[in-house]
Protein backbone atom coordinates (compact mmCIF):
# COMPACT_ATOMS: atom_id res chain seq x y z
CA UNK A 1 0.00 0.00 0.00
CA UNK A 2 1.28 3.37 -0.93
CA UNK A 3 0.49 6.37 1.22
CA UNK A 4 -0.75 9.67 -0.11
CA UNK A 5 1.59 12.65 -0.42
CA UNK A 6 1.55 15.55 2.03
CA UNK A 7 0.09 17.74 -0.71
CA UNK A 8 -2.97 15.53 -1.10
CA UNK A 9 -3.46 15.59 2.65
CA UNK A 10 -3.41 19.36 2.58
CA UNK A 11 -5.89 19.65 -0.26
CA UNK A 12 -8.20 17.01 1.20
CA UNK A 13 -8.22 18.66 4.62
CA UNK A 14 -8.75 22.14 3.26
CA UNK A 15 -12.03 20.91 1.80
CA UNK A 16 -13.28 21.00 5.38
CA UNK A 17 -12.81 24.76 5.58
CA UNK A 18 -16.09 26.53 6.08
CA UNK A 19 -17.68 23.40 7.45
CA UNK A 20 -15.71 23.13 10.64
CA UNK A 21 -13.85 25.88 12.54
CA UNK A 22 -10.43 26.94 11.44
CA UNK A 23 -8.77 25.59 14.57
CA UNK A 24 -10.09 22.09 13.90
CA UNK A 25 -8.86 22.18 10.30
CA UNK A 26 -5.49 23.39 11.47
CA UNK A 27 -5.16 20.70 14.11
CA UNK A 28 -6.26 17.92 11.80
CA UNK A 29 -3.85 18.98 9.09
CA UNK A 30 -0.97 19.07 11.54
CA UNK A 31 -1.82 15.69 13.03
CA UNK A 32 -2.21 13.99 9.66
CA UNK A 33 1.06 15.35 8.35
CA UNK A 34 2.83 14.21 11.47
CA UNK A 35 1.44 10.69 11.26
CA UNK A 36 2.09 10.43 7.54
CA UNK A 37 5.80 10.83 8.23
CA UNK A 38 5.81 7.74 10.39
CA UNK A 39 3.56 5.52 8.35
CA UNK A 40 1.70 5.61 5.09
CA UNK A 41 -1.89 6.77 5.08
CA UNK A 42 -4.09 5.59 2.27
CA UNK A 43 -6.60 7.79 0.51
CA UNK A 44 -9.40 5.70 1.91
CA UNK A 45 -8.17 6.24 5.44
CA UNK A 46 -7.98 9.98 4.91
CA UNK A 47 -11.51 10.09 3.69
CA UNK A 48 -12.64 8.10 6.70
CA UNK A 49 -10.79 10.35 9.10
CA UNK A 50 -12.21 13.50 7.54
CA UNK A 51 -15.69 12.06 7.61
CA UNK A 52 -15.17 11.09 11.24
CA UNK A 53 -14.01 14.58 12.16
CA UNK A 54 -16.98 16.11 10.41
CA UNK A 55 -19.35 13.85 12.29
CA UNK A 56 -17.69 14.42 15.63
CA UNK A 57 -17.91 18.16 15.06
CA UNK A 58 -21.55 18.24 14.01
CA UNK A 59 -22.59 16.09 16.93
CA UNK A 60 -20.77 18.44 19.30
CA UNK A 61 -22.57 21.57 18.08
CA UNK A 62 -25.15 22.99 20.46
CA UNK A 63 -28.61 21.94 19.37
CA UNK A 64 -31.21 24.53 18.46
CA UNK A 65 -33.38 25.26 21.45
CA UNK A 66 -30.71 24.38 23.96
CA UNK A 67 -30.79 26.59 27.07
CA UNK A 68 -27.24 27.85 26.66
CA UNK A 69 -27.74 30.78 29.00
CA UNK A 70 -28.92 28.62 31.88
CA UNK A 71 -26.05 26.21 31.34
CA UNK A 72 -23.57 29.10 31.26
CA UNK A 73 -25.05 30.54 34.46
CA UNK A 74 -24.76 27.22 36.24
CA UNK A 75 -21.29 26.54 34.90
CA UNK A 76 -19.98 29.85 36.16
CA UNK A 77 -22.11 29.87 39.28
CA UNK A 78 -21.05 26.55 40.75
CA UNK A 79 -17.28 27.22 40.69
CA UNK A 80 -18.15 30.67 42.00
CA UNK A 81 -19.24 29.09 45.27
CA UNK A 82 -15.72 27.84 45.76
CA UNK A 83 -14.06 31.18 45.27
CA UNK A 84 -12.61 33.32 47.98
CA UNK A 85 -15.05 35.76 49.42
CA UNK A 86 -12.20 37.78 50.82
CA UNK A 87 -11.98 41.05 48.98
CA UNK A 88 -8.53 42.44 49.00
CA UNK A 89 -4.86 42.38 49.72
CA UNK A 90 -3.02 39.88 47.75
CA UNK A 91 0.61 40.79 47.87
CA UNK A 92 1.78 38.72 44.93
CA UNK A 93 5.09 39.33 43.28
CA UNK A 94 4.67 42.99 42.48
CA UNK A 95 3.27 44.16 45.83
CA UNK A 96 0.32 45.61 44.00
CA UNK A 97 -3.15 45.72 45.42
CA UNK A 98 -5.36 43.36 43.44
CA UNK A 99 -9.02 42.45 43.78
CA UNK A 100 -9.42 38.72 43.48
CA UNK A 101 -11.91 35.93 43.46
CA UNK A 102 -15.63 36.41 43.70
CA UNK A 103 -15.56 40.17 44.37
CA UNK A 104 -13.62 40.71 41.16
CA UNK A 105 -15.89 38.41 39.16
CA UNK A 106 -18.93 40.29 40.43
CA UNK A 107 -17.24 43.53 39.49
CA UNK A 108 -16.77 42.32 35.92
CA UNK A 109 -20.30 40.93 35.53
CA UNK A 110 -21.85 44.01 37.13
CA UNK A 111 -19.87 46.20 34.69
CA UNK A 112 -18.86 48.62 37.43
CA UNK A 113 -17.65 51.94 36.14
CA UNK A 114 -14.42 51.79 38.13
CA UNK A 115 -12.83 48.65 39.51
CA UNK A 116 -11.99 48.84 43.20
CA UNK A 117 -8.36 48.21 42.37
CA UNK A 118 -7.51 49.64 38.97
CA UNK A 119 -4.38 48.21 37.40
CA UNK A 120 -2.52 48.76 34.17
CA UNK A 121 0.08 46.64 32.46
CA UNK A 122 2.16 48.88 30.28
CA UNK A 123 4.37 47.40 27.62
CA UNK A 124 7.07 49.64 26.24
CA UNK A 125 8.47 50.04 22.77
CA UNK A 126 11.53 47.94 22.19
CA UNK A 127 13.99 50.79 22.75
CA UNK A 128 12.68 51.29 26.26
CA UNK A 129 11.69 47.75 27.14
CA UNK A 130 15.23 46.39 27.01
CA UNK A 131 16.93 48.93 29.22
CA UNK A 132 16.27 48.99 32.92
CA UNK A 133 17.23 52.65 33.20
CA UNK A 134 14.86 53.78 30.48
CA UNK A 135 11.99 51.72 31.87
CA UNK A 136 12.63 53.18 35.34
CA UNK A 137 12.80 56.66 33.92
CA UNK A 138 9.44 56.15 32.24
CA UNK A 139 7.98 54.77 35.46
CA UNK A 140 9.04 57.88 37.34
CA UNK A 141 7.62 60.03 34.59
CA UNK A 142 4.12 58.61 34.87
CA UNK A 143 3.86 58.20 38.63
CA UNK A 144 1.69 60.95 39.98
CA UNK A 145 3.63 63.15 42.37
CA UNK A 146 1.83 65.73 44.47
CA UNK A 147 3.30 68.47 46.61
CA UNK A 148 2.59 66.37 49.68
CA UNK A 149 4.73 63.52 48.30
CA UNK A 150 7.87 65.66 48.30
CA UNK A 151 7.11 67.62 51.47
CA UNK A 152 8.91 66.84 54.68
CA UNK A 153 6.58 68.96 56.73
CA UNK A 154 3.69 71.34 56.14
CA UNK A 155 2.43 73.96 58.52
CA UNK A 156 -0.06 76.79 58.58
CA UNK A 157 1.37 79.92 60.11
CA UNK A 158 -1.65 81.67 61.60
CA UNK A 159 0.21 84.75 62.73
CA UNK A 160 1.63 85.71 59.33
CA UNK A 161 -1.22 83.99 57.47
CA UNK A 162 1.05 81.86 55.26
CA UNK A 163 1.24 78.18 54.43
CA UNK A 164 4.76 76.82 54.79
CA UNK A 165 6.06 73.68 53.10
CA UNK A 166 9.41 72.20 53.99
CA UNK A 167 10.60 70.11 51.08
CA UNK A 168 12.45 66.84 51.32
CA UNK A 169 15.76 67.08 49.50
CA UNK A 170 16.29 63.40 48.67
CA UNK A 171 12.74 62.80 47.56
CA UNK A 172 12.92 65.79 45.27
CA UNK A 173 16.13 64.57 43.75
CA UNK A 174 14.58 61.24 42.97
CA UNK A 175 11.69 62.97 41.25
CA UNK A 176 13.99 65.46 39.50
CA UNK A 177 12.30 68.48 41.02
CA UNK A 178 13.71 71.71 42.39
CA UNK A 179 12.15 74.19 44.83
CA UNK A 180 11.89 76.83 42.11
CA UNK A 181 10.17 74.40 39.75
CA UNK A 182 7.63 73.49 42.41
CA UNK A 183 7.11 77.13 43.31
CA UNK A 184 6.40 78.10 39.72
CA UNK A 185 3.91 75.25 39.29
CA UNK A 186 2.06 76.36 42.40
CA UNK A 187 2.16 79.97 41.25
CA UNK A 188 0.86 79.13 37.78
CA UNK A 189 -1.98 76.83 38.77
CA UNK A 190 -3.22 78.45 41.96
CA UNK A 191 -2.39 82.07 41.15
CA UNK A 192 -0.83 82.88 44.47
CA UNK A 193 2.36 84.42 45.78
CA UNK A 194 5.10 81.92 46.54
CA UNK A 195 8.26 82.86 48.38
CA UNK A 196 11.28 80.57 48.18
CA UNK A 197 13.57 80.30 51.14
CA UNK A 198 16.02 77.46 50.55
CA UNK A 199 13.94 74.33 50.89
CA UNK A 200 11.04 76.20 52.41
CA UNK A 201 8.13 77.53 50.38
CA UNK A 202 5.89 80.25 51.80
CA UNK A 203 2.54 80.49 50.13
CA UNK A 204 0.27 83.45 50.72
CA UNK A 205 -3.47 83.27 50.06
CA UNK A 206 -5.02 86.01 47.95
CA UNK A 207 -7.24 87.18 50.80
CA UNK A 208 -6.02 86.86 54.32
CA UNK A 209 -8.90 85.02 55.90
CA UNK A 210 -8.56 81.85 57.89
CA UNK A 211 -10.93 79.84 55.71
CA UNK A 212 -9.10 80.93 52.59
CA UNK A 213 -5.80 79.83 54.08
CA UNK A 214 -7.17 76.43 55.01
CA UNK A 215 -8.65 75.93 51.56
CA UNK A 216 -5.35 76.91 50.00
CA UNK A 217 -3.45 74.45 52.18
CA UNK A 218 -5.51 71.46 51.06
CA UNK A 219 -5.30 72.52 47.44
CA UNK A 220 -1.55 72.93 47.54
CA UNK A 221 -1.00 69.56 49.21
CA UNK A 222 -2.90 67.72 46.49
CA UNK A 223 -1.39 69.69 43.62
CA UNK A 224 0.09 67.36 41.00
CA UNK A 225 3.65 68.26 40.09
CA UNK A 226 4.34 65.60 37.52
CA UNK A 227 3.03 62.26 36.34
CA UNK A 228 -0.20 61.03 34.83
CA UNK A 229 -3.51 61.63 36.54
CA UNK A 230 -4.77 58.51 38.27
CA UNK A 231 -1.48 56.59 38.31
CA UNK A 232 -0.68 56.29 42.00
CA UNK A 233 1.94 53.56 42.16
CA UNK A 234 4.36 52.18 39.63
CA UNK A 235 6.34 48.95 39.67
CA UNK A 236 8.83 47.89 37.00
CA UNK A 237 9.13 44.17 36.47
CA UNK A 238 11.20 41.92 34.24
CA UNK A 239 8.91 39.66 32.23
CA UNK A 240 10.01 37.41 29.40
CA UNK A 241 13.09 39.34 28.46
CA UNK A 242 11.62 42.81 28.69
CA UNK A 243 10.78 45.36 31.32
CA UNK A 244 7.07 45.79 31.90
CA UNK A 245 5.55 48.60 33.92
CA UNK A 246 2.69 47.75 36.25
CA UNK A 247 0.69 50.56 37.77
CA UNK A 248 -1.89 50.98 40.43
CA UNK A 249 -4.52 53.32 39.11
CA UNK A 250 -5.37 53.64 35.48
CA UNK A 251 -5.54 56.26 32.75
CA UNK A 252 -5.73 54.27 29.54
CA UNK A 253 -6.07 57.06 26.99
CA UNK A 254 -3.27 59.19 28.31
CA UNK A 255 -0.84 56.32 28.76
CA UNK A 256 -1.60 54.97 25.29
CA UNK A 257 -0.79 58.29 23.69
CA UNK A 258 2.67 58.45 25.24
CA UNK A 259 5.47 57.88 22.71
CA UNK A 260 7.31 55.30 24.84
CA UNK A 261 4.31 52.99 25.11
CA UNK A 262 3.64 49.96 22.95
CA UNK A 263 0.13 50.75 21.76
CA UNK A 264 -0.62 47.24 20.67
CA UNK A 265 -0.30 45.37 23.95
CA UNK A 266 -0.79 47.78 26.84
CA UNK A 267 -3.93 47.01 28.80
CA UNK A 268 -5.93 48.13 31.80
CA UNK A 269 -8.37 46.15 33.94
CA UNK A 270 -10.92 48.93 33.70
CA UNK A 271 -13.34 47.62 31.10
CA UNK A 272 -15.17 50.91 30.68
CA UNK A 273 -11.96 52.68 29.81
CA UNK A 274 -11.24 50.05 27.17
CA UNK A 275 -14.74 50.48 25.77
CA UNK A 276 -14.25 54.22 25.53
CA UNK A 277 -10.81 54.10 23.96
CA UNK A 278 -10.85 50.96 21.83
CA UNK A 279 -14.53 50.17 21.32
CA UNK A 280 -17.09 47.53 22.15
CA UNK A 281 -15.28 44.58 20.58
CA UNK A 282 -12.15 45.27 22.60
CA UNK A 283 -14.34 45.56 25.70
CA UNK A 284 -15.82 42.16 24.97
CA UNK A 285 -12.34 40.67 24.71
CA UNK A 286 -11.35 42.41 27.92
CA UNK A 287 -14.36 40.98 29.76
CA UNK A 288 -13.46 37.48 28.58
CA UNK A 289 -9.80 37.91 29.50
CA UNK A 290 -10.48 39.37 32.93
CA UNK A 291 -13.09 36.75 33.83
CA UNK A 292 -10.86 33.89 32.71
CA UNK A 293 -7.92 35.35 34.60
CA UNK A 294 -9.98 35.66 37.78
CA UNK A 295 -11.32 32.12 37.55
CA UNK A 296 -8.02 30.55 36.58
CA UNK A 297 -6.21 32.32 39.33
CA UNK A 298 -8.50 30.53 41.79
CA UNK A 299 -7.73 27.20 40.15
CA UNK A 300 -11.16 26.88 38.58
CA UNK A 301 -11.72 25.61 35.09
CA UNK A 302 -14.77 27.05 33.41
CA UNK A 303 -15.22 26.40 29.72
CA UNK A 304 -14.37 29.50 27.76
CA UNK A 305 -17.59 29.30 25.74
CA UNK A 306 -19.73 30.07 28.78
CA UNK A 307 -17.75 33.19 29.50
CA UNK A 308 -17.82 34.24 25.86
CA UNK A 309 -21.60 33.93 25.86
CA UNK A 310 -21.89 36.18 28.89
CA UNK A 311 -19.50 38.71 27.36
CA UNK A 312 -21.40 38.67 24.06
CA UNK A 313 -24.69 39.30 25.85
CA UNK A 314 -23.18 42.12 27.86
CA UNK A 315 -21.94 43.80 24.69
CA UNK A 316 -24.84 43.02 22.31
CA UNK A 317 -26.42 46.47 22.57
CA UNK A 318 -23.29 48.29 21.47
CA UNK A 319 -22.28 49.27 24.98
CA UNK A 320 -21.25 47.30 28.03
CA UNK A 321 -24.27 46.48 30.16
CA UNK A 322 -24.27 44.70 33.48
CA UNK A 323 -25.99 41.38 33.99
CA UNK A 324 -28.65 42.60 36.37
CA UNK A 325 -31.69 44.76 36.68
CA UNK A 326 -30.01 47.80 35.13
CA UNK A 327 -28.72 45.85 32.18
CA UNK A 328 -29.32 42.56 30.44
CA UNK A 329 -32.07 41.26 32.76
CA UNK A 330 -33.78 44.63 33.09
CA UNK A 331 -34.25 45.04 29.37
CA UNK A 332 -36.10 41.83 28.62
CA UNK A 333 -39.11 42.35 26.41
CA UNK A 334 -41.54 40.53 28.68
CA UNK A 335 -43.10 42.29 31.68
CA UNK A 336 -43.61 39.07 33.57
CA UNK A 337 -40.01 38.02 33.07
CA UNK A 338 -38.78 41.35 34.41
CA UNK A 339 -41.23 41.34 37.30
CA UNK A 340 -40.19 37.87 38.37
CA UNK A 341 -36.56 38.97 38.64
CA UNK A 342 -36.32 42.04 40.88
CA UNK A 343 -38.52 44.98 41.94
CA UNK A 344 -41.72 43.18 41.00
CA UNK A 345 -44.29 45.83 41.84
CA UNK A 346 -42.54 48.60 39.95
CA UNK A 347 -42.44 46.59 36.75
CA UNK A 348 -46.06 45.51 37.02
CA UNK A 349 -47.21 49.02 37.84
CA UNK A 350 -45.25 50.60 34.98
CA UNK A 351 -46.58 47.98 32.60
CA UNK A 352 -50.14 48.78 33.67
CA UNK A 353 -49.63 52.49 33.22
CA UNK A 354 -48.16 52.04 29.75
CA UNK A 355 -50.64 49.38 28.75
CA UNK A 356 -47.98 46.83 27.92
CA UNK A 357 -48.91 43.41 26.69
CA UNK A 358 -47.02 40.16 27.11
CA UNK A 359 -46.85 37.78 24.20
CA UNK A 360 -45.88 34.87 26.45
CA UNK A 361 -43.06 33.79 24.19
CA UNK A 362 -40.30 33.52 26.79
CA UNK A 363 -39.50 30.88 29.38
CA UNK A 364 -40.48 32.59 32.59
CA UNK A 365 -43.80 33.90 31.29
CA UNK A 366 -44.86 30.42 30.33
CA UNK A 367 -43.77 28.96 33.65
CA UNK A 368 -45.94 31.57 35.35
CA UNK A 369 -48.83 30.80 33.02
CA UNK A 370 -48.39 27.08 33.57
CA UNK A 371 -47.76 26.23 29.94
CA UNK A 372 -45.02 24.20 28.26
CA UNK A 373 -41.94 26.37 27.88
CA UNK A 374 -40.43 27.20 24.49
CA UNK A 375 -37.16 25.41 25.08
CA UNK A 376 -35.59 22.35 23.56
CA UNK A 377 -38.32 20.25 21.99
CA UNK A 378 -40.87 22.78 23.27
CA UNK A 379 -39.50 25.46 20.98
CA UNK A 380 -40.95 23.87 17.87
CA UNK A 381 -44.48 24.46 16.79
CA UNK A 382 -46.53 22.66 14.25
CA UNK A 383 -47.89 24.75 11.44
CA UNK A 384 -50.42 23.13 9.14
CA UNK A 385 -50.85 24.29 5.61
CA UNK A 386 -54.51 24.73 4.87
CA UNK A 387 -56.03 24.11 1.48
CA UNK A 388 -53.91 22.90 -1.39
CA UNK A 389 -53.65 19.25 -2.25
CA UNK A 390 -53.08 18.21 1.34
CA UNK A 391 -50.53 15.69 2.41
CA UNK A 392 -47.83 16.83 0.01
CA UNK A 393 -45.67 18.64 2.55
Amino acid at each position, binding site marked *: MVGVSPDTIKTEVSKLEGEV*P*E*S*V*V*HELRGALLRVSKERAITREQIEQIIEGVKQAYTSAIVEPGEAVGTIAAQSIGEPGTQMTLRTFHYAGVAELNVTLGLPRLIEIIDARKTPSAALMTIYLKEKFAKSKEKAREFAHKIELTTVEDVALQTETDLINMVFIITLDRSRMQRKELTPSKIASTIKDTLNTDVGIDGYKLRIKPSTTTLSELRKLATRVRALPLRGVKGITRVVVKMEDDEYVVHTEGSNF*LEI*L*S*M*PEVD*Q*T*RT*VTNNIHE*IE*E*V*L*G*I*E*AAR*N*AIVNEAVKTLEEQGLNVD*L*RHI*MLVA*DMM*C*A*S*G*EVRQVGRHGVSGEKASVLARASFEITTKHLLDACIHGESDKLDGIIENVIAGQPIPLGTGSVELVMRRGGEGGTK
Partner: protein
Amino acid sequence: MSSELEVGRHALVPKHEVLSKKEVEELLKQYKIHTHQLPLIKSSDPAAKAIGAKPGDVLKITRKSQTAGEAVFYRYVIEG
Protein backbone atom coordinates in the same frame (compact mmCIF):
# COMPACT_ATOMS: atom_id res chain seq x y z
CA MET B 1 3.56 64.03 23.86
CA SER B 2 0.94 62.21 21.85
CA SER B 3 1.53 59.95 18.93
CA GLU B 4 -1.67 59.22 17.03
CA LEU B 5 -3.59 56.30 18.50
CA GLU B 6 -4.40 53.62 15.95
CA VAL B 7 -7.25 51.66 17.45
CA GLY B 8 -7.05 48.79 14.98
CA ARG B 9 -3.50 47.94 15.92
CA HIS B 10 -4.29 47.03 19.50
CA ALA B 11 -4.29 43.32 20.32
CA LEU B 12 -7.74 43.55 21.88
CA VAL B 13 -9.35 44.96 18.74
CA PRO B 14 -10.37 42.40 16.10
CA LYS B 15 -10.63 43.24 12.41
CA HIS B 16 -13.69 45.33 11.52
CA GLU B 17 -14.96 45.63 7.94
CA VAL B 18 -17.97 47.31 6.40
CA LEU B 19 -20.07 44.89 4.36
CA SER B 20 -21.30 45.88 0.93
CA LYS B 21 -25.04 46.04 0.21
CA LYS B 22 -24.92 42.72 -1.57
CA GLU B 23 -23.03 40.99 1.21
CA VAL B 24 -25.53 42.28 3.77
CA GLU B 25 -28.39 40.89 1.71
CA GLU B 26 -26.72 37.50 1.49
CA LEU B 27 -26.04 37.48 5.21
CA LEU B 28 -29.63 38.30 6.11
CA LYS B 29 -30.87 35.66 3.72
CA GLN B 30 -28.50 33.04 5.07
CA TYR B 31 -29.66 33.45 8.65
CA LYS B 32 -33.22 34.50 7.74
CA ILE B 33 -33.07 37.61 9.90
CA HIS B 34 -33.50 41.38 9.72
CA THR B 35 -30.74 43.86 10.43
CA HIS B 36 -32.28 44.88 13.75
CA GLN B 37 -31.84 41.33 15.02
CA LEU B 38 -28.07 41.64 14.79
CA PRO B 39 -25.97 42.76 17.75
CA LEU B 40 -25.37 46.50 17.65
CA ILE B 41 -22.41 48.83 17.55
CA LYS B 42 -22.52 52.58 17.97
CA SER B 43 -21.28 54.77 15.13
CA SER B 44 -19.22 56.63 17.74
CA ASP B 45 -17.41 53.42 18.67
CA PRO B 46 -13.67 54.03 18.18
CA ALA B 47 -13.19 50.89 16.11
CA ALA B 48 -16.20 51.69 13.91
CA LYS B 49 -15.09 55.27 13.51
CA ALA B 50 -11.63 54.15 12.41
CA ILE B 51 -13.07 52.39 9.36
CA GLY B 52 -15.63 55.10 8.71
CA ALA B 53 -18.78 53.09 9.40
CA LYS B 54 -22.07 54.95 9.21
CA PRO B 55 -25.41 54.18 10.86
CA GLY B 56 -27.18 51.52 8.79
CA ASP B 57 -24.02 49.68 7.83
CA VAL B 58 -23.34 46.12 8.88
CA LEU B 59 -19.86 45.37 10.14
CA LYS B 60 -18.14 42.05 9.74
CA ILE B 61 -15.88 41.40 12.68
CA THR B 62 -13.30 38.66 12.40
CA ARG B 63 -12.36 37.67 15.90
CA LYS B 64 -9.46 35.54 16.92
CA SER B 65 -11.05 32.87 19.01
CA GLN B 66 -9.34 30.45 21.35
CA THR B 67 -11.92 27.80 20.60
CA ALA B 68 -12.57 28.21 16.88
CA GLY B 69 -9.36 29.78 15.67
CA GLU B 70 -11.24 32.43 13.80
CA ALA B 71 -14.82 33.44 14.39
CA VAL B 72 -16.93 35.84 12.36
CA PHE B 73 -19.37 38.14 14.11
CA TYR B 74 -21.68 40.79 12.71
CA ARG B 75 -22.85 44.06 14.19
CA TYR B 76 -25.38 46.56 12.92
CA VAL B 77 -24.24 50.18 13.19
CA ILE B 78 -26.61 52.46 15.08
CA GLU B 79 -26.47 56.15 15.81
CA GLY B 80 -24.86 57.00 19.11
